[in-house]
């Protein structure tokens, strides 16, 4: 048992570090942070990562992936976090990618994999519906076969970044017979198809990340279906497991904790730094210690994936604990922001206020409440663990 890095790994680390320093410039960081420039800057950033073969590092080599070891993934995420750089938006490369190369037809692979990898195709995820959140089997959006097409009617909700997306991957109902899970198909839908409309949902951070996506007689070629009809749940499940692992947000927590330590050392009660308040120290220490454990929990999961074990139970654990630690960290961040944590920039061009640390803290705390809800709520994860790990 050890965490020492080999010579190759050390070289890789240095390579990533230099790349980050040179490519994740303050200008780019600022553009990514602002809603107006978010999409174009994100694509630019992801293309830079892709130029090194790092964007789709989890894909098999035949599709341009890196076949990275757990250690490499860990090094990579750490270097991203060290400069505060975002990993790729997961919907396309991390979530849909594996479904495409595992279950897609040859034609689908050719059409979608390269464009997804190069960030020329922005994906969003059409899973949740009103009344079918963690309970996906209850979904109501329906696709009815009509010749070589499906006619899709219904609506998806909480769709992250649908306003930017070129394509959406959707779970739709294609049958009413048998188990609900056996009635679902997995469709790829061009967002420009007539009959699709997107309406924004402003979330409690006062920002626009989420959307409702409405489908009214949307005609989709049958060829856009992944795999077999009514087998969509099988393909979707694999993807959920990945999503849970990703939601843990370990690198994000690490970066944010560093920010908390730095900010806390700058001022607090009695004009001393908050880090001189022993009770605040104790609070911070408790969160840091939970994080230190979480970091190794992730390493254990990565390492078990390396050893060819599918991340099953551990991915639920990681999602549970990771989302909880994220919220603890965000709470600390807000608590030390002081009075600026309550300010809301009414317009996005109130640039100074948008960027001030208190405002970042507010937005992250508020949007962060979703981490324990989406990707299968933490309550559902606990049900899953109780059933499969504890036999209850």
């Amino acid at each position, binding site marked *: 048992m050890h965490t020492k890095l080999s010579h190759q790994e050390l070289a890789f680390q240095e390579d990533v570090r230099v790349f980050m320093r040179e490519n994740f410039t303050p200008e780019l960081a600022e553009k990514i942070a602002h809603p107006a420039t978010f999409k174009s800057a994100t694509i630019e950033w992801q293309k830079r990562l892709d130029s090194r073969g790092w964007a789709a590092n989890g894909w098999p080599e035949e599709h341009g992936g890196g076949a990275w070891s757990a250690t490499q993934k860990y090094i990579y995420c750490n270097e991203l976090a060290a400069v505060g750089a975002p990993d790729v938006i997961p919907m396309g490369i991390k979530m849909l990618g594996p479904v495409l190369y595992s279950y897609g037809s040859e034609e689908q692979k050719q059409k979608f994999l390269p464009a997804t990898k190069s960030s020329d195709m922005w994906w969003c995820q059409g899973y949740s519906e009103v009344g079918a959140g963690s309970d996906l089997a209850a979904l109501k959006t329906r696709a009815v076969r009509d010749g070589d097409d499906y006619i899709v009617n219904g609506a998806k909700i909480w769709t992250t970044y649908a306003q930017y997306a070129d394509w959406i991957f959707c779970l739709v109902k294609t049958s009413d017979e048998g188990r609900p899970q056996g009635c679902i198909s997995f469709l790829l839908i061009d967002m420009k198809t007539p009959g699709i409309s997107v309406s924004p949902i402003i979330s409690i951070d006062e920002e626009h990340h989420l959307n409702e996506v409405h489908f009214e007689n949307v005609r989709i070629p049958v060829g856009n279906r992944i795999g077999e009809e009514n087998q969509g749940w099988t393909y979707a499940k694999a993807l959920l497991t990945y999503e849970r692992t990703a939601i843990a947000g370990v690198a994000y927590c690490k970066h944010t904790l560093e920010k908390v330590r730095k900010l806390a050392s700058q001022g607090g*009660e009695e004009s001393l730094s908050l880090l001189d308040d022993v009770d605040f120290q104790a609070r911070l220490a408790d969160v840091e210690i939970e994080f230190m454990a979480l970091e190794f929990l992730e390493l254990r999961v990565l390492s078990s994936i390396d050893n060819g074990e599918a991340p099953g139970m551990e991915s639920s654990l990681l999602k549970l604990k990771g989302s909880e630690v994220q919220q603890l960290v965000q709470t600390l961040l807000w608590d030390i922001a002081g009075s600026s944590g309550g300010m809301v920039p009414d317009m996005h061009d109130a640039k100074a206020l948008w960027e001030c640390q208190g405002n970042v803290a507010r937005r992250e705390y508020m949007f962060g409440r979703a981490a324990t809800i989406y990707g299968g709520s933490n309550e559902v994860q606990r049900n899953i663990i109780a059933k499969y790990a504890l036999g209850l």
Partner: protein
Amino acid sequence: MNFSMTEEQLMLKDSVAKYLQDTYSAEHRVNILKQTRGYSAENWQTFADLGWLTVPFAEEDGGFGGNISDVSIIMEEFGSALVIEPFWSGVVLAGQLIARSNNDSLKKHLMPTLMSGEQLVSFAFLEPQSVFMLNHLTTTATKVGDNYLLSGEKRVVLNATADSILIPARTAGDGSSEQGISLFLVDANGPGLQRDVYRLMDGQLAMDIRFDGIQVSSARMLTAEGEAFPLISEVVSEALVALCAEAVGAMNHLYKATADYCRTREQFGVAIGTFQALQHRIVDMFMATEQCRSLLMRAQCSILDGSSDIQRDVAALKVMIGKHGRHVAEEAVQLHGGMGMSNEMPIGIYLKRLMMIDSYLGNKDHHRRQFCKLRYCA
């Protein structure tokens, strides 16, 4: 010992509750928030017409003659309905500073306009370095003839559209002395006052102000020179209790709304309210609310009894409201799922209001430090 409400209090509670239920819907609140001043002038006039703005003030001043308990009744209903009008900042905090000052002519002149809703005053207590200690004050007031020249800056002054601002300033003493603090009523729109207005996440319009040598007549000083601290301290203690009453109202609303939601929202074919794990968590929300309500009553009794434990009881209350208030609201968001995340649903707004209540006049960490000082270092 007596914890019951009087007939009069029951009537007050019912009338406030009924009015708000009939008129103060979630949609109504959204519309108010869009107005430039951050609240509805029309509502404010109605509150005045209903006599609510007179509740804390003595009968001889034309008020209702209510005490902290009456004020808390209103605040709790306001918390439950998420009322955004500046009752707390304008009446409970600034209003009481004026009502309890011994500048009788100022008081005589101002009180009627406050109670009629014509005038609004705000209290500017927070300075960049003060970290919520009311005695940490560097704003200065220098006497020149019959006037004082005020210089300094104040942060997060609530109700940015108030007509006047109460500004505490040092006429003597060092940075944290309780002596030498005077309190001035300053025209909010007068020359020399730089204002930086912004919106807070609970919908309040607030501002940072900055002034360098603005001139204020000594007739607009609320106490004898240098003797304002006891007044400020007393009024702030009561205002904290009233603020916590608002929080209890909000918490009470949240656990009930969450239970209602869980009774109707279905998942896996049954109402999620039938899931025992969720039931127990809503029970804990209920229990936290009742604990806060108990401490609220304790602090009220402390004030009404003139106890020597007022500061300790108020600090304890603010700690618990900060801790449990946010927790209850976070649970409400969680159990409402996506609905809790949407800004169109009021659940998240309760969370934001409870977070801001925690931050006003010192958060739970600050008040726990005060509690420890009073309890363990005396």
